[in-house]
């Protein structure tokens, strides 16, 4: 068998997104159909283009099949694998040119990206440690353990200017140095994978796609600060990530990358998984520590900082998943290499999950310094159906909504902060004209208010008051003075809260007030919602010119609000109507007789 044939591989994306579209069944069927053929079928972590999933990729030629179903498997086997004839009908269709694109590297979504942290994600089988080592994995750990002193590693990380990718952007080298300098008999390394921000899945994808890169980063961090024990804190809502991490840790132990005397050195290090039990505030490092200790996840007063007194009162280094996954790259390629990527103040790459109304949703890694516009319109392909872009929400409940006029700012920690948003853990939600900005602010406040641990008053009471006002506004009970009151309360909660949750919770409100104040004013003064989202501020109406009296809306209305005889024009009783929208959905498209209006009729 020639080497060329031997190395042929068919990769099936088995990230959570594709698995939910049944890619696991595709994988099994492909394996079954090719059991006697010279081709390797393997599952991979998130390949990125979730929107087009399930994805099947052929390597080394890079042929990219999207939206695959179980029924397509036979054709792929018969045509592509047997006769080396790619199946054209399964190629990606460029929505702009209308032409098919066979190789993923030519697709715009991939072309503009720079994959460093995700270098191996979507290429190797995450459940096979050998695939990771064969692609250069654990070389950095080997180098750090056998050739470098802790001070050397520290110097390299500091020189690289890597900043914490969990969102706040604290210099990683400095954090490591604090822990290195702390004197104690025991120290800990914690990987913060409590990705609680709704609308982001980057940490999950790193765990699912390249779990060993996190483990490798933790080994190096542990050796540097002098810790022998690490914890990976991962959300229980990510069952697949937990499963793959468990396998990865077990395999790393078997290969002596974890355990006693790692790789023949004197250094011992082991990792335990801790499953978070569902509390957003546990993403805050001191709350996370309390949670591991078996307590309620409330933040601690700082100082002392975890670097001095963290888990069980010992010096503790807490880094985000992506920060740790960046470490091996820096050790392998050097600080100068890393320094060349990114902007003056933010080096390296950032991973975003691009979602919402973007035409191309998925997992995206770009160099710092790329503009938001490039990410949304080049990689993301703009909005679905070319609807009018309204806002980009970035940074989860702690982040903010940016209008179109700010899309030329560059992605880095400082520019985003200046605009009122933040990097956060990297959720990017594209919103078009059908999204109501007041509703979005309410949505986030509703979330943070529920997730507030209740320890400090400004956060517990302030978010509740803000939410009450926002609820009034979307229910049509808003008063003109509410808008200024909201703005005043936002500042109070921001300055008065103990931890990051409260300090950033008002951000969605502050930014929407700043950039979309006219929408608030419309809700309050004109009692209308232009996006037609807020039920109390819209009305449904049957267009008599279009209604044929088919009676479908009449039959489906749960509130008996529609009257009319068969074959005659129907009418909606506005007093009875609860604006559930069922009639709007049910009216056959050929008639389209039901219309929705902003405001009350």
């Amino acid at each position, binding site marked *: 068998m020639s080497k060329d044939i031997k190395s042929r591989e068919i990769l099936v994306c088995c990230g959570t997104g594709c698995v939910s579209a049944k890619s696991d069944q595709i994988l099994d069927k492909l394996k079954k159909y090719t059991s006697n053929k010279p081709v390797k079928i393997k599952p991979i972590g998130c390949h990125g283009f979730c929107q087009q999933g399930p994805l099947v990729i052929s390597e080394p030629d890079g042929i990219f099949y999207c939206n695959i179903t179980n029924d397509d498997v036979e054709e792929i086997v018969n045509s592509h694998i047997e006769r080396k004839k790619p199946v054209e009908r399964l190629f990606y269709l460029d929505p702009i040119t209308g032409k098919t694109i066979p190789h993923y590297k030519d697709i715009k979504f991939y072309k503009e990206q720079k994959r460093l942290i995700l270098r191996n994600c979507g290429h190797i089988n995450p459940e096979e440690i050998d695939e990771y080592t064969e692609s250069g994995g654990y070389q950095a750990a080997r180098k750090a353990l056998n050739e470098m002193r802790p001070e050397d590693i520290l110097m390299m990380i500091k020189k690289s200017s890597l900043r914490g990718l969990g969102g706040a952007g604290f210099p990683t080298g400095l954090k490591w140095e604090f822990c290195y300098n702390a004197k104690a008999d025991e120290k800990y390394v914690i990987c913060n994978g409590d990705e609680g921000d709704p609308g982001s899945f980057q940490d999950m994808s790193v765990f699912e796609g390249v779990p060993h890169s996190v483990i490798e980063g933790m080994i190096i961090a542990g050796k540097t600060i002098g810790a022998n024990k690490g914890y990976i804190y991962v959300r229980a809502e990510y069952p697949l990530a937990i499963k793959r991490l468990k396998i990865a840790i077990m395999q790393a132990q078997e290969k002596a990358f974890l355990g006693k005397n790692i790789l023949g050195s004197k250094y011992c290090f082991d990792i335990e998984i801790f499953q978070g039990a569902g*509390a957003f505030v546990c993403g805050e490092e001191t709350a996370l520590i309390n949670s591991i200790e078996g307590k309620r996840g409330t933040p601690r007063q700082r100082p002392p900082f975890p670097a001095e007194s963290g888990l069980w009162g010992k010096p503790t280094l807490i880094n985000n998943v992506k920060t740790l996954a960046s470490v091996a790259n820096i050790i392998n390629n050097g600080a100068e290499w890393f320094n060349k990527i990114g902007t003056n103040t933010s080096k390296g790459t950032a991973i975003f999950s691009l979602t919402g109304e973007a035409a191309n949703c998925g997992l995206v890694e770009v160099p710092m310094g790329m503009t938001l516009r490039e990410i949304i319109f080049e990689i993301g392909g703009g909005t679905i159906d070319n609807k009018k872009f309204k806002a980009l929400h970035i940074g989860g409940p702690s982040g903010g909504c940016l209008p179109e006029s700010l899309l030329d700012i560059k992605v880095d920690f400082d520019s985003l902060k200046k605009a009122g948003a933040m990097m956060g853990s990297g959720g990017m939600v594209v919103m078009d004209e059908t999204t109501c900005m007041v509703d979005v602010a309410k949505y986030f406040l509703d979330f943070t208010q529920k997730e507030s641990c209740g320890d400090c008053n400004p956060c517990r009471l302030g978010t509740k008051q803000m939410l009450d006002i926002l609820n009034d506004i979307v229910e049509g009970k808003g008063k003109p003075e509410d808008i200024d009151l909201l703005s005043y309360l936002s500042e109070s909660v921001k300055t008065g809260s103990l931890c990051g949750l409260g300090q950033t919770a008002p951000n969605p409100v502050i930014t929407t007030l700043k950039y979309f104040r006219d929408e608030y004013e419309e809700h309050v003064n004109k009692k209308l919602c232009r996006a037609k989202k807020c039920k109390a501020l819209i009305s449904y109406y049957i267009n008599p010119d279009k209604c044929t009296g088919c009676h479908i809306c009449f039959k489906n209305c749960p509130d008996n609000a529609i009257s009319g005889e068969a074959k005659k024009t129907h009418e909606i009783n506005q007093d009875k109507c609860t604006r559930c929208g069922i009639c709007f959905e049910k009216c056959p498209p050929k008639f389209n007789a039901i219309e929705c209006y902003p405001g009350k009729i």
Partner: protein
Amino acid sequence: MLVMKEKLGIILSSFSGEGRELIPVLQKVQDEMGYLSPEAMLYAAEFLKIPPSNVFGVASFYEQFRFSPVGKKMVMVCQGTACHVKGAEKVMNEISRHIGIKKGQTSEDMEYTLKGVTCIGCCALAPCITINDDVHGRLTPKLIEKLFIKKPVNKKTNE
């Protein structure tokens, strides 16, 4: 109660009984029993040598823990940002209409429990839900109808 104690004893046999294990212990109990009953929490307190108030304090803090039994099918509607923007509320209302219970409730026949969840990480397939371990994405009213309306028995297959 005795049977319950024995059962809990077996469930927790892999733990050493230290207070720090509280959260994994509660997770394990809930995994096996479906929910945290008062008896189970009292047992956990005794097992870990910590006050019952601590156990309840921690259990009630975290979203994951529940204190009543759940239906055979646990339906979780994702309410993450992407899903919210793409109509998670409508999805919740539609499902609620089909199975006749509201968010947070369990049906009387113990068939369904309907819950909201912050984010399950399938944002690119929004709006999505999970039914037990299965994720269903890109939901439309039609798909929801398919998932939740009992299929009429096809007479031909009975022949």
